[in-house]
């Protein structure tokens, strides 16, 4: 965990950069109807959203649990608490073929080990030689088809030179491929990434170039920090907004969820 403590919200309460990221990610689901949730940071944020801004959000995990409302953060995508609190539990073939593939799910909510300027995601290998990787990562899981078939994709990832690279070492999940027109050529039915939330701020694809561009910062973060944590020449939006610090309520919900979760 990144334990950097921010300067403190308007009411004087401190919060960490990771907490700000999770709260910003939860807020990003404000207009979402259903969300296919990856484990880790996306799962934390989706569960905060369910308890704050988006009480009607339908959470879907690849284990086949639809409309689940876990009372703590699930430790894996197949945690028993997901099945116990779900509207429906379906098989894994069904969740991918009947629910994800036809484009029924609004937001795909993903993490990343690497992300590039066109929002392509790598969770497979670090290093360009697949057979002799520097680091062997877990692999694709559900992500390639979540990234392809959800109506839109939101990514939550900590921003650093290690993660924000010019070109991912391995394309596990396609964002905008090589740029404009790639998704159409590949026959991907969803719109692709619309937002990337980091511990520094928000990036959104430039509609002309499909390249990720800095559009907002968390309180107390400077544009140069985002530039320095990005492995390509980062474009900056004409108007950069500063996001509101987490509210007391948002922080309480996030911390209660984390406290109720057995730590691994």
């Amino acid at each position, binding site marked *: 965990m990144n334990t950097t403590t921010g300067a403190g919200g308007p009411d004087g309460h401190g919060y960490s950069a990771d907490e700000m990221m999770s709260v910003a990610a939860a807020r990003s689901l404000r207009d979402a109807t259903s969300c296919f949730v990856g*484990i880790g940071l996306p799962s934390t944020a989706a569960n905060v959203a369910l308890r704050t801004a988006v009480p009607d959000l339908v959470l879907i995990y*690849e*284990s*086949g*649990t639809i409309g689940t409302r876990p009372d703590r953060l699930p*430790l*894996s*995508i*197949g*945690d*028993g608490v*997901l*099945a116990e609190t779900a509207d*429906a*539990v379906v*098989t*894994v*073939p069904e969740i*991918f*073929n009947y629910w*994800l*593939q036809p484009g029924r799910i609004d937001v795909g909510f993903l993490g990343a080990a690497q992300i590039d300027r066109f929002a392509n995601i790598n969770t*497979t290998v670090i290093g360009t030689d*697949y057979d002799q*990787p520097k680091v*062997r990562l*877990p*692999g*694709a*899981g*559900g*992500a*390639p*088809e979540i990234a*392809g*078939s959800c109506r839109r994709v939101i990514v939550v990832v900590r921003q650093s030179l290690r993660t924000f690279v010019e070109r991912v070492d*391995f*394309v*596990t*999940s*396609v964002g905008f*491929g090589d740029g404009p027109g*790639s*998704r159409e050529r*590949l*026959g*991907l*039915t969803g719109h692709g990434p619309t937002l990337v939330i980091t511990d520094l701020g928000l990036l959104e694809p430039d509609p002309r170039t499909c390249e990720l561009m800095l559009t907002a910062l968390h309180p107390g973060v400077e544009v140069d920090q985002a530039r320095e944590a990005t492995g390509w020449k980062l474009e900056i939006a004409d108007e950069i907004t500063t996001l509101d610090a987490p509210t007391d309520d948002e922080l309480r919900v996030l911390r209660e969820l984390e406290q109720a979760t*057995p730590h*691994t």
Partner: protein
Amino acid sequence: MADIVSLDEAVDALVSDGDTVALEGFTHLIPVEAGHEIIRQGRRGLTLVRMTPDIVYDRMIGAGCADRLIFSWGGNPGVGSLHRLRDAVEHGWPRPLEIEEHSHAGMVNRYVAGASGLPFAVLRGYAGTGLMGRQPDVVTTITCPFTDEQLVAVRALRPDVAVIHAQRADRSGNTQIWGITGVQKEAVLAAERSLVTVEEVVDELEPHPGGVVIPGWAVDCVAAVPGGAAPSYAHGYYDRDNDAYVAWDAVSRDRGRFVEWLGDNGMAMAVDAAHDGAGGAA
């Protein structure tokens, strides 16, 4: 009708050296004890198939059972890497491991094709990813004969043996699973032979909402193995032992500690075999 036998009899009868073996269970009902029995019986040269190879495959790979792994997500959920899997891929210990990797959607469709008696399945997937083109003998593009749309075809998976764990079976081997049911039914129906380990064998199965029943005549062997999914969980029987997953990280990081662990857990025969021709502990 399935034979109701002991676990060691079932593995002896169904799993042979060189087989393609799928142990399925999607974070829930993982047939861990069956995996341990395969280690104990010293099987070699297996192609292991599993969507989410986790600690049971880490153990089987570390004990030298496998030459090949077909998977879509390999990690210790909520903890990190599978160190025995990485040691085999990166350093060939205790033997080299070839890998074939997919997405979850690709794997489930390969099982569905196998269960359906079809040579392949069609999906929207893989397009634009680095997984496309790595294994053209099992993943390729296909043109829809009706719309000319470009789609992806994945080859059917037909394992020699599928092994799953279920909550219970009756005395005819009809098997009942509830909670997260994963891809187990497809794995059993795709395979030539199948083994179901269960928490208990009962006189009569009571209906369970959302439950899946696999008829006994579609299964070869059923073995009662109470606690057989631990440290994963069995809905209605016991919870996931999260501490065991965390503890595995330290054991599996070190070859010596791993070998010791195998010995301490009744798999010492496999320890000797795993050491044959291996270059000693790291």
